[in-house]
């Protein structure tokens, strides 16, 4: 609100509870076009839950969500938000790409089939057009030659890159990454990191939840440290890693990550 450009995404006082556990606790957040946001924090701090509320994979208990300047996703009855029907939700989701920790590729489709699936089914594009888009995206993640194999034959890093291509094929305005490298063998982290770095360079707006400090250090515009469902620290990477930020908790967290 205080920044110049209108935010692409705005969260206002989002709260999400699971049977007594408050996973996200009144969080507000603006993401502006082209911004790269990295969220870090210990396990169970609500990072994934927050990310999942953005595209309605979790239904919030309180709060409001704006996307592209319009409040969306919920109708309010008796002051409480109720999720809208699919015909409202799905088009918003189609604008937001999401990459999961465990890839969740569709095992029964080839790599190309995975990447074509969104354009074909959701955007109702023609086969040829979808194919073209898909091939372009596979080229971007450097996996053109794997297009006809099934996901089961790929390495972890390759799988994650296909997952990224699958999200990109929808030409999303915002990309969400939920620990995109934590399920990978240490050796394979690099290739996925490079891919995401490339995307960032192209100006994609993204929110990345990660344990990998490389993302925070090399690619973030803003780093958020989350704990207990709240934003504890919100700063630039430089500030965050400098010792000046006298937060005991963050220092011990960073030290524990080897």
């Amino acid at each position, binding site marked *: 609100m205080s920044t110049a450009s209108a935010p692409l995404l705005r969260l206002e006082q989002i709260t999400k509870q699971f049977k007594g556990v408050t996973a996200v606790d009144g969080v507000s957040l603006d993401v502006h076009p082209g911004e790269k946001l990295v969220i870090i924090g210990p396990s169970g701090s609500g990072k994934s839950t927050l990310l999942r509320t953005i595209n309605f994979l979790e239904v919030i208990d309180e709060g409001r969500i704006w996307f592209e300047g319009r409040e969306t996703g919920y109708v309010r009855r008796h002051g409480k938000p109720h999720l809208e029907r699919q015909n409202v939700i799905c088009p918003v*989701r189609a604008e937001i790409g*999401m990459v999961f920790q465990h890839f969740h590729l569709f095992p*029964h489709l080839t790599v190309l089939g995975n990447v074509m699936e969104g354009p074909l089914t959701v955007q109702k594009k023609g086969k040829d057009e979808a194919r073209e888009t898909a091939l372009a995206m596979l080229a971007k993640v450097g996996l053109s030659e794997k297009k006809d194999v*099934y996901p*089961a034959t790929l390495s972890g890093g390759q799988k994650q890159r296909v997952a990224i291509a699958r999200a990109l094929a929808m030409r999303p305005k915002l990309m969400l990454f939920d620990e995109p490298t934590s399920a990978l063998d240490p050796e394979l982290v690099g290739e996925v990191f490079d891919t995401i770095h490339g995307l960032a360079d192209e100006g994609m707006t993204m929110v990345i939840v990660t344990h990998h400090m490389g993302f925070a250090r090399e690619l973030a515009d803003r780093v958020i440290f989350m704990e207990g469902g709240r934003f504890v620290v919100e700063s630039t990477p430089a500030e965050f890693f400098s010792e000046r930020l006298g937060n005991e908790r963050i220092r011990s967290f960073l030290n524990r990550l080897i």
Partner: protein
Amino acid sequence: MKRICSRVLTALLFLWITAASLLAAQVDSEELFRQANELQGGGDLAAAVQVLGRVPSPSAGGDEEDFVRSRMQIARIKFSMGEFDQAEGAAQEVLRLFPANSEALNFVASVKTEKKPRYVTFLDDCRRFLPHLFKGAGMTLLLMVCIMAISPLGGLLIALGRISHFPPLSACCWFIIWLFRGTPLLLQLFFIYYGLPSLGITLRPFTAAIIGLGLNYSAYLGEIIRGAILSIDHGQMEAAKALGMTYGQAMRRIIIPQTYKRLMPPVANEFIALIKDTALVSTIAMVELMRAADQMFNTYFNVTALILAAVIYLAFTTLFTFIFEKIEYRAGIYEHR
């Protein structure tokens, strides 16, 4: 008066003699049978045969039926003594009189069989039974193919109904599953075929069989399909939703296609069971393999028919198992590394 009297007397006398002679003959035969039974019961078979042999042939003025009865009994006794030629001879005597008599024909056939080597008898039986059994097997196959076409669809509907979040639909599908899995198929077929007419719905046996088996197997497959859908990693649904797919699109394009491979083993099991459950439709007067075999067994009192049926069932099972394995392999091709 005297003339009338004597005439009446003569007539009566003639009647009397005829009657007496008839009676005598009858009593005589009955007595012979009685004696023969006594002897046979006591184990003196040769003597019994001799006594029975005294029953006169019709050409010798004997009674037709008594003659036939005695000769058949002789035949049976001779047969049990292993004297097949003489046994056949006695039966042939009857056939000379009544060439189409089924009892004697059956007997002669039995004797002929007994004289042949075992494997020849077996081959004969095969030749005799197989055409009819094959006809029955054709019906079994037809039923199977129909149910295999119908029940996966029915099962899918029931499964989707069960996991839907609309309580009346879910409860209704639960009830169908509960009812059809909870009662014997035999009873279900019975009610559909014999019970529905009292509600004004009269079904042909084939229709009734398809409805009964179809509902039953839809209920079973419904549970299997539901299990398979629920066993697909939840992440798949999330990934599909994250792409912007609706629930229906995600089901149709992502979830259900992934169930095929894990569905195959339990579904194949059900279909193998189906091969044998088709035997139950004989309750509602359909002639399939089991019924055909039973008919042959009942008609010829010959176990070979049942053995042959078992072999045909085994062939079916083996064939279908093989086919299902091929399909399972194809369905899971994407999992091979």
